[in-house]
């Protein structure tokens, strides 16, 4: 970081890339993986000694904390994965069979588009994209006309990682269920920062990551699968149970988990979940809404800066995307870091169709994603930096 912006800059949180991975984490999240490796380092399910049981308990507590977060009664329905992409692959490839038709929104990330694209190219499935408005909201009228006899799955990006726009989950789940179609929610951007009630909404599957709004380490994530829905496992192997059989156990969660899990990472994730539970998801949601509104309003004043996505009073997660005239986004990102110490992400954000929907393909946008720990002072510093940059570009 340069010292050109005065002594206060070093005390600010200039990390605006929480949509990629959150930072900072609660202090307990840093400590828990080390403690797990030093004191509870057994392999869950593999032996009967104390350390193994402690590792088993850690997994159970983490499952239960995730189940509570989504208002799920049975923790067995939560399986741990490498990340949200892994969970989406397990869900998509585990629930579809040859000849199925799949609906997805234009805001989907490559973690959905690529698995669907692979199945499509292999001739196994057909797909239809639900277009989205320039603000990033799915066209519900189009959705109603898109169902076919073979439609089996609707994939919904809960909040776009480009615009922050939040899809109307309740209406979309109702629509899909009316047509006897399952719903897979990609909650990569929302698990931990928006209330998601799987039971009340009747969601069939939720894919989530641990290292964004759940404030845990990378390499953690998971999938919720509703009771009664049996997915075909993507991976099979050791589980520590029913070892005499040459087939993978059918009961959840082992059904979708093979091999040793990321226990150290999950220990950190559990602390992230505890932090969210202590803080309250409504408190987090309120703070993030306030920060987004303030950021949006501060940037709105700047000449030549164009904002994309929801306005400050529309449903959105904590993301603001912008461009400045025809200036290269990468260049703006470079100036922000080099001259001001501000970290953000520029380009297409692994969501090419979302950029087509909002009219920023192929150049992309500059994406600012503050987090729960961002303050108004941090936003003021960022807005002042962008004021200087826009003034410079206008000249």
């Amino acid at each position, binding site marked *: 970081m340069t010292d050109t912006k005065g002594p206060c800059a070093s005390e600010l949180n200039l990390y605006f890339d929480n949509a990629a991975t959150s930072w900072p984490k609660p202090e307990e999240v840093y400590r828990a993986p080390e403690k797990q490796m030093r004191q509870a380092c057994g392999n869950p399910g593999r032996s009967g000694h104390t350390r193994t049981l402690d590792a088993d*308990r850690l997994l*159970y507590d983490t499952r239960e904390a995730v189940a509570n977060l989504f208002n799920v009664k*049975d923790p067995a329905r939560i399986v741990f994965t490498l990340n949200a992409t892994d969970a989406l692959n397990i869900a998509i490839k585990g629930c579809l069979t040859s000849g199925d038709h799949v609906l997805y929104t234009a805001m989907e990330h490559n973690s959905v588009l690529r698995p669907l694209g692979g199945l499509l190219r292999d001739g196994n499935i057909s797909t239809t994209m639900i277009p989205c408005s320039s603000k990033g909201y799915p066209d519900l009228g189009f959705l109603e006309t898109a169902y076919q006899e073979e439609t089996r799955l609707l994939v919904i990006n809960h909040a776009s990682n480009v615009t922050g726009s939040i899809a109307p989950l309740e209406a979309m789940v109702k629509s899909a269920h009316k047509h006897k179609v399952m719903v897979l929610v990609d909650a990569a951007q929302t698990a931990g920062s928006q209330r998601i009630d799987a039971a009340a909404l009747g969601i069939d599957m939720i894919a989530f990551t641990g290292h964004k709004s759940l404030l845990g380490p990378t390499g953690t994530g998971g999938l919720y699968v509703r009771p009664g829905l049996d997915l075909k496992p993507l991976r099979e192997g050791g*589980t520590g149970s029913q070892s005499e059989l040459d087939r993978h*156990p059918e009961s*959840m969660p*082992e059904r979708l988990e093979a091999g040793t899990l990321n226990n150290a990472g999950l220990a950190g994730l559990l602390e992230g979940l505890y932090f969210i539970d202590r803080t309250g998801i409504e408190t987090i949601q309120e703070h993030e809404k306030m920060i987004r509104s303030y950021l949006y309003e501060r940037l709105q004043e700047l000449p030549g800066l164009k904002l994309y996505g929801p306005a400050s009073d529309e449903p959105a997660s904590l993301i603001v995307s912008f461009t400045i005239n025809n200036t290269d986004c990468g260049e703006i990102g470079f100036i922000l870091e080099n001259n001001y110490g501000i970290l953000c992400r520029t380009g297409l954000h692994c969501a090419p169709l979302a950029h087509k929907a909002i009219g920023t393909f192929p150049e992309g946008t500059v994406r600012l994603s503050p987090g729960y720990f961002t303050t108004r002072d941090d936003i003021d510093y960022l807005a002042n930096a962008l004021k200087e940059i826009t003034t410079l570009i206008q000249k």
Partner: protein
Amino acid sequence: MAYSCYITFPTTFFAIRAESILKKESAVFKMVPVPRSISSSCGTALRCKCEDINSIKDTLLQYELDLEGFYRLKEEGFKTPIVEELDLND
């Protein structure tokens, strides 16, 4: 000569879920490695007093847990215990 009762589980998940539920219910039990004389899919079993096994089973079934088997073991030092499989199905 002492008797102990055991409940076995199809997977570790159910064993740990049983422990978590029973702790909240203040039940008296211990999670132990499955004795060699019992066959089980999962390496961890629940040991309790034989007079408590019915109430523990009922509590676990209320939470819709999958239970694998119920046993009474006559244990004497390091001698191979005498195993009796219990039929606790209602």
